[in-house]
């Protein structure tokens, strides 16, 4: 795990078996909607905000995942804009981006890393 200056607080969300393979779900974490993806074909997990930065709709967890030149991405179901699951940047060239969160798996439980919980939305 790539830790920056501040160590996030790890919030348990659900068990691994609840997540669809190569798909996403939305979790409620301290009032915030977070999309979590079990990217099983890469053996990786990713998380980002659930909100489409373009329309404001809470739908990214329902988006399809895949890769673009090797970069893991999620495709927004509203207008097919792609976002890097690593950096949150919009791969399809728009200037908005999405927030991403670290994911940690331990003993079959999925944890999301949040900085200073309680101050979110």
């Amino acid at each position, binding site marked *: 795990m790539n830790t920056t200056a501040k160590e996030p607080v790890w919030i348990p*969300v659900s068990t691994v078996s609840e997540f*669809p393979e*190569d798909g996403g779900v939305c*979790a409620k974490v301290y009032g915030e*909607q977070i999309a979590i993806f079990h990217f099983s074909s890469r053996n990786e997990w990713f998380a980002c905000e659930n909100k489409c*930065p373009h329309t*404001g709709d*809470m739908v990214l967890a329902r988006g*399809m995942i895949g890769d673009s030149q090797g970069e893991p991405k999620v495709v927004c179901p509203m207008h097919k804009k792609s976002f890097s699951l690593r950096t949150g940047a919009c791969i399809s060239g728009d200037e908005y981006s999405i927030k991403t969160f670290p994911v940690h798996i331990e003993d079959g439980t999925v944890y999301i890393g949040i900085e200073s919980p309680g101050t979110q939305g």
Partner: protein
Amino acid sequence: MKRKLVILGNGMVGHRFAEKIAEYGGTEKFEVTILGEEPRRAYDRVHLSEYFTNRSADSLYLSPSDWYRTNGIRLLLSEPAISVDTVSRKITTSAGTELPFDELVIATGSSAFVPNFEGVDKQGVFVYRTIEDLEKIMSYAKQVSKVAVLGGGLLGLEAAKAVLDMGKESHVVEFASRLMPRQLDEAASSVLKSKIESLGVRIHLNKETKQALGESSFQGLEFVDGSVLEVEMLIVSAGIRPRDELAKNSGIEVGQRGGIIVDDELRTNVYGVYAIGEVALHKGMIYGLVAPGYEMAEILAYNLCSPGQKTKSYAGSDLSTKLKLIGVDVASFGDALGQTEHLPIAYTNPRTGVYKKLVLSTDGKKLKGGILVGDADAYSNLLTLYLNNVELPAEPESLIVGTPSEEGSAFGSLPDDAKICSCNNVSKGDLLGAIRSGACSDLKGLKECTKSGTGCGGCIPQMNSILKEELRAQGKVVTEHVCEHFKYSRQELFQIAKVKGIRSFEEMIRTHGMGNGCEVCKPAVASIIASIYNEPIQKHREIQDTNDKYLANIQRGGTYSVVPRIPGGEITPDKLIVIGQIAKKYDLYCKITGGQRIDLLGARMEQLPDIWKDLVEEGFESGHAYGKAMRTVKSCVGSTWCRYGVQDSTAFAIRIEERYRGIRAPHKLKSAVSGCIRECAEARGKDFGIIATEKGWNLYVGGNGGVNPKHAILLAADLDEETCVKYIDRFMMFYIRTADKLVRTSAWLEQLEGGIEYLKDVIINDRLGINKDLEEEMNHLVGTYVCEWKDVVDDPEKQKKYKHFINSEDADPTVRFIEERGQKRPVDWPKKELVSN
């Protein structure tokens, strides 16, 4: 030390100039500052009216917000220059900042010309120029119902469309005797006028305004001829005036009727001061279009960045225009009005609202100009012929009547310096160079390498044929790869899946692809697997397109709409009542669809299984409105009720719809059956349509509504029901097997070598000897049908997937509705750009 380059104006042209400076390495040499009067960075003013519908400035911006910083260019917004001192060489801004300059580029553009009649300053009179203008218009329009636009030019008609879109009564008032007087002749204007009038815009020609009516607020216009137009709001779009006031006050020479005078190198009379775009007056011309401004920007940037080398000169621009006005194509180029000696050829069809005119040289060999109204498909080809002064074919009328072949004979011989993209000044040679260098091998790459096709897009068909021709010349196979993950076309993947028995995406990508897949190949493979095996598509849930994944159509707010199947549009009163009761129970908005069904909108994701359960219990099933699949078969009442009907179209439509319901295809499929030649079911606007004759049924294929409406073509006539169904089986399966992803039957048929005659040979004469297979495949699909909703209703595990949160039973708290006309609807998307941080 860097020289100081100041650009006045951050519109489309000022921005393009800055871009070109950066591209030519000018930021090494210059310290660049741009001043903009508006509070926002440069945006696409040409597509301003889109702001009315999407209300997002975001999609209009010409560059990302950090573009200026990344390129080392200083941008000052809401800070126009108020004076230029050409002696001490500095400008003063509205904020009082003094900016010294070595080079000054004036790109202040133009402002709307407002005629000076009495009362023009009343409340309720607006100009149409900036996003801020549009916001004022939208806000004021809330309190009015009738709006007039003053000016029947390009922009005025755009504004009239916007008024119509706002749901207001829309009027256009034009001083001249015709619309778009600078681009169109009388005949073209008259065709355009009746087209636009048929859409609900009222047009008043030959109207000179005398005064505005009303006390403090605007209440209408009185004309010199004594007539009066009562409207509550006026949008002025009567032309432009160059913003040359800074120049006038500082000794920079301007023309008698305005505009900063520039020479062929875009220099003014003051050393180191230049003007480009709509403020510049070149050889007596002011260009009110963006393309000439772009051309000037490029030339000036080039000259400033490469001193000592040969400079480029500006030779004036072509005033060609192509646009879509209220859904009507209009194009005009060259000497469209025939002002020099010429030979005109014109074609008018008042029935279809099409007018085409070629202005030829007197010997008929060269194209000097032209006008297209109603159908401007020929525009980019004609423009290329005109711009490159190419000799015309022996029968030049073939260019506007009949069907010109895709790579018309006049194009093969285009010289390398022929201009293909006039927006970005890209020649055929530039394109060939990029392809030959190996830098790009597809259209997307070619656009990125050359910028060609990234402006108005009109040259994309020609880029495509140049690309394909060159790749073929290099001996390369022109392939249609599905995406970066598969080096196969959809048709090839279909054959692979069938021959190798591949039944999942995972297996397909592991054995024949690379990477992790994407939003293009996953649904394509999902569709192929569904077309071969017809298993419930929820088995492959994560590779389905979003609507298929949730078996409903995602709409604004992230809610869904639900469309139960109503075969042939026939429904009993009891079933109608049941739909109403279910809609009421879940508080759903109701609308009759264009496919004779009932759309229930506003369902939250977690409500879907319950709504389906109620519908399924009452005998309804999925209408597949969400699928790239067979959807609906429309019908008229036919011989059972209609006094003209010759066959029972309703019964046949129901039979057809029930036979093919839900069958997956490369794109959605629609059909209709009409009971007589009056065609009330609009069968020829469908992928396949059936029209009753005295002797049986006529089968038409390859039609559609949509963006490019196409009438279906006759495949076979006077068929009995069994033969008709057999032909449809073969037609559909042949399409499903061979079409590229997301290609509808009309485009597929167009691309099919040999066209309809070949298709007839395959379907009717079994030219390929595959008809037995096609029929068997179809029978398999028909025989294995299950309702996809029922599949979820019967399975509690599948229903779990419809929860909004994995760790909470709560619904999405952000979904909100408001009431309109007695029903709910989602709140609008936020007005301003929504960059989330």
